[in-house]
């Protein structure tokens, strides 16, 4: 019997296909906003969600999606405030997620083995009901990631401009956070909560080595994600190791190859077509009126001790209540 005839492998491969598509799709937006580690944080918080499910006897995938969305919303609100203490608040949230999860799983009477299947994925534990939830959530993520693509791109690319075009930037940022949370839950059974972030980021980083546009990065990252997931699941079956590890190792191997090829390509491109010379920059024109400082024996320099003032494209030195600026072989009053 080949492995593709095994029902649990069919379920694992379907879950893997959807994970491979949705994680890089949302990951492209996270990387563009320079929030690559957001998936990691949500993954930590989701551990508490899984534990709550085990403790209360309800499906962990449901409790995980609820707790992840709550966590992602909290992260987004803290981030949007932009306070320096936000960084620490997020760290507390992440540690709380892991510690709370481990504690609750212990109280539920489950051991490290159960926890491991959620942390690093597991082929045999994707049940049919899990699969329905995963399919539904993944399709929702893909519809939003593609359908709202232009809006999400604008928000991630230039938030202020997006605001002036009348987009509801805060809402769209929240949509991205919630989608990331849902994706974490989708990916939980295949790559696992500790490695889900890798599947959001690594395919995007790999795609970027060879692509030049946002759209091609998005599509290439999804293709890489699907290939890594399916190949990783097959390898995991044959080698009898956790699928999360094989998927991420394969994705990283792909990155190394793409980075090497990309560097060689750029170097070759650079040899054939060197950068054009830029036109000379025209900065602030010579100041007017042009008053030469009479009898100025002192030569200012950055270390001369006179206070320096930035003035357009040059520096003025404060000298006996006057501003002096270098001009050719003499000093000007500014």
């Amino acid at each position, binding site marked *: 019997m080949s492995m593709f005839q095994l029902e649990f492998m069919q379920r694992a491969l379907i879950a893997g296909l959807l994970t491979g598509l949705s994680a890089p799709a949302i990951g492209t937006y996270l990387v563009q906003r320079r929030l690559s580690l957001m998936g990691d944080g949500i993954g930590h918080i989701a551990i508490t969600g899984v534990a709550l499910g085990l403790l209360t006897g309800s499906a962990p995938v449901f409790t995980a999606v609820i707790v992840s969305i709550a966590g992602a919303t909290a992260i987004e609100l803290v981030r949007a405030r932009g306070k320096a203490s936000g960084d620490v608040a997020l760290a507390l949230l992440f540690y709380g997620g892991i510690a709370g999860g481990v504690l609750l799983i212990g109280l539920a009477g489950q051991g490290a083995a159960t926890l491991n299947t959620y942390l690093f994925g597991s082929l045999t534990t994707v049940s049919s009901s899990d699969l329905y939830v995963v399919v539904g959530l993944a399709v929702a993520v893909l519809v939003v990631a593609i359908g709202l693509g232009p809006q999400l791109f*604008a928000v991630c690319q*230039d938030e202020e*401009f997006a605001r002036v075009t009348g987009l509801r930037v805060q809402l769209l940022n929240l949509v991205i956070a919630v989608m990331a949370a849902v994706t974490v839950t989708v990916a939980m059974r295949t790559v696992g909560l500790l490695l889900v972030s890798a599947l959001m980021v690594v395919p995007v980083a790999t795609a970027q080595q060879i692509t*030049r*546009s946002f759209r091609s990065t998005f599509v290439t990252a999804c293709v890489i994600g699907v290939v890594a997931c399916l190949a990783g699941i097959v390898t995991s079956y044959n080698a009898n190791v956790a699928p999360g590890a094989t998927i991420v190792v394969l994705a990283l191997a792909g990155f190394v190859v793409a980075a090497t090829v990309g560097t060689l390509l750029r170097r070759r491109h650079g040899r054939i077509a060197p950068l054009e010379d*830029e*036109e000379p920059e025209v900065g602030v024109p010579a100041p007017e009126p042009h008053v030469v400082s009479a009898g100025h024996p002192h030569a200012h320099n950055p270390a001369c001790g006179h206070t320096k003032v930035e003035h357009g494209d040059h520096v003025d030195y404060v000298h006996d209540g006057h501003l002096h600026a270098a001009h050719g072989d003499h000093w000007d009053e500014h």
Partner: protein
Amino acid sequence: MTHSPDSAPKAVQVSDLSVDLGGRLVLRGVDLQIRQGEVVAVLGTNGSGKSTLIRTIVGLLPAARGEVRLFGTPVPRFRQWKRIGYVPQRITAAGGVPATVYEVVSSGLLSQRRLFTPLRAAGKQAIEESLALVDMADRRKDPVAELSGGQQQRVLIARALVSDPELLILDEPTAGVDLASQQIFADAIRERVARGTTVVMVSHDLGPMDALIDRSVVLRRGRIVYDGPPHASQTHAHVHHSHGADEPGWLT
């Protein structure tokens, strides 16, 4: 210039505006009215509040006191953003993922695009025209991060012009931009001005745009100190205090 009659709502109406940035009053009681079709330069030294004024007008900063109205509607309630074109100082967030010139310019159409709908043919044509206007049509597939500062700035103005706005607001469009790009910039804006577009631009140094200006406003320490016709030395008068206080337009 095609000025609309006085009964038309002002394009921009700033009344008694004060703006507080981190506990410091950057604008203090600014009053400014800009009629539709006017081309206004906002001048002043670094830290005089020029950019703060512009950013408050487009709603990026909240007013501590007073209000800003765009076409007669207070900014917090303003929804017709497709009438506004905004050119920020720089590409603020060169994101972690490459984006092409075409992709960046197409986001200028979002104010008139509905959710979950693809770009229509008219939109694609507007993008092509906008790219041609700033002489970037042959770079449309290049990532913006690979362009020079002047070329990036041209992409930003194409993004603002693509929606054919009635009010164009530019924040230091020419700072550090090569002269060739400044000229292309000025030509693109001249074409819009001829069609009646209102323009408000903040600048240190207007360069080739100088000739387009109808009126200049000089800010110093968060207050308007000059509001009147532009004059020959305007680009430096505000920096070097070389004006006489009795000249017309200077406020005391």
